[in-house]
């Protein structure tokens, strides 16, 4: 309910730095974005992806994931994975924040590894916002 994190320059700066650092950890990371629950781009890695559009889509996906777990009564969704022939998207919420991390990986990374890195950076983002 706070004003959008995307409007806070300090948050945007920290988020950008964190994504750059994340890319340094794995060369398989081809795109990543931090976005608000209601679909605003906070920070993203440079690339061909339309960041604003992707932020909207990622937030819809996050909410649909939550709607599905709610429907099935299995608690909250922890992460979402979309696998395709050319790579996969790993997406999860920044713990305790109205913020989502969504990352695109190529097939050189294993799902387990990608998930582990995404999780740890989601946590780092949460710590930064404390």
């Amino acid at each position, binding site marked *: 309910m706070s004003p959008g*994190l995307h409007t806070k320059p300090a948050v945007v700066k920290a988020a950008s730095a964190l994504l750059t650092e994340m890319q340094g950890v794995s060369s398989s990371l081809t795109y990543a974005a931090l976005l608000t629950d209601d*679909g605003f781009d906070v920070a993203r890695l440079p690339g061909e992806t339309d960041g604003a559009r992707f932020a909207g889509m990622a*937030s819809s996906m*996050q*909410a649909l994931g939550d709607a599905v777990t709610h*429907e099935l009564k299995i608690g909250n969704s922890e992460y979402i994975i979309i696998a395709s022939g050319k790579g996969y998207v790993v997406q999860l919420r920044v713990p305790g924040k109205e913020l989502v991390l969504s990352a695109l990986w190529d097939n050189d990374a294993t799902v387990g590894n990608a998930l582990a890195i995404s999780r740890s950076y989601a946590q780092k983002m949460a710590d930064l916002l404390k």
Partner: protein
Amino acid sequence: MAEHVILFTGPMGAGKTTAIESLSEIEVVRTEANNSERHIADKPTTTVALDYGEILIGAEEKVRLYGIPGQKRFDFMWAILKKRAKGMILLVNSDAPDPIEEMLSFIEEFRELYDRGGVVIGVSRADVVAGPTLGDYSDALERTNPDMVIPVFTVDPRNRDQMENVLLALIANIEMRAMFGMMTTEAV
């Protein structure tokens, strides 16, 4: 099972989610997220994917009620949701900066629902700000779409009785338009 998909469209804060909550017989599937645009619509949450509700008619038939997210940045959801719908309830909040312009842009965006079914417009939040008269909305529609006679009602989406009236007016319209062969495209 026969299914009839009705889409609720309109700008942020018009009352789409509220309307579906008023009409649905099942617990509404909601995709609300914290709203970081309180300056546009002062409410805690906003829809980011869709709303979904149902009215069952006997065992073999249901009316499916889908709501869109109101903001343009979710227009990929608009494209997904409009595919199967055969009618639209367009809600416009009277207290928007330019509700008539909002109405016209949603009519334009979802025109195919008029062509293949029917449209009813509900002007909400008229108790908050009186805004333009219904005549103003109709005049604007006549100017931009001279062949359309689209019903425009004031409506409070929190009021189930009024929402039922709006829904029934839409269904009556869709059926009459089919009867007179006025639809130019079929639902996919």
